[in-house]
């Protein structure tokens, strides 16, 4: 993995900055237009969860190489309240806010690999990968 870039997420305009960076990194790797749209959408969902539920946090965007495989890794980290029940949070339609409850399960569907760690009172970390096919 390369050093990657970290973007502090503190307001809704940072979501756009992170999205644009994700697109740029994805374009350099030669992802298709559809994949670039998926990457930007995933960044939007994860960064917005940070703003809404944790107030602030970081988005980390890296490229990854595994033998001949190349991909992008998007990680959202925050020190917010954490998610008490991850199983519930991953269900379509489950939201403790005013959302549609589609962000996390949708991100899982859109990406090739999905990992989530969360501890109540400590924070949340969601890391997802997309491989260039």
């Amino acid at each position, binding site marked *: 993995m390369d050093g990657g870039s970290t973007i502090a997420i503190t307001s809704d305009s940072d979501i756009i900055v992170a*999205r644009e960076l994700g697109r740029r990194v994805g374009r350099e790797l030669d992802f298709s*237009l559809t994949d670039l*749209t*998926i990457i930007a*959408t995933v960044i939007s969902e994860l960064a917005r969860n940070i703003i809404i539920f944790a107030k602030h946090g970081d988005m980390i965007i890296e490229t990854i190489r595994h033998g001949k495989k190349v991909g992008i890794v998007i990680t959202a980290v925050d020190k917010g309240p954490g998610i008490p029940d991850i199983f519930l949070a991953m269900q379509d339609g489950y939201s403790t806010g005013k959302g549609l409850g*589609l962000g996390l399960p949708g991100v899982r569907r859109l990406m090739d690999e999905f990992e989530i760690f969360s501890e109540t009172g400590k924070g949340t970390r969601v890391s997802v990968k997309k491989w260039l096919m």
Partner: protein
Amino acid sequence: MEVPILKQSDYLIATIQAALTDEDLLKLHYALVEQVGKHRSRGVIIDVTALDIMDSFATRTLRSLVHMVKLRGADTVICGIQPEVAFTMVQLGLTLEGISTALDLEEGLALLTTSNNKKRKI
């Protein structure tokens, strides 16, 4: 970046020109609901051709906008959703159920005109 709203006879046309912050999108929501009342518009077109993504927040905001505009007596058509944006929305589970969509501005206007003519006949 604020979204310009153009008044054309009975209709309002809002053309999104670049990525919008959540705040911009909420502003557009309030502005359209207000202007529909002020101009007694019969229809609203939101042109999202330049929108590079449609996430859960944008979808929820547009849905609520369409419902409020409806309560103010006007129809909304969303036009110009790009194919890759549509593809991503479907995978995310986002739908615009019950909302009229059109390929482009021209088709959107045609759709509004037909639905208004029907209403007038009744």
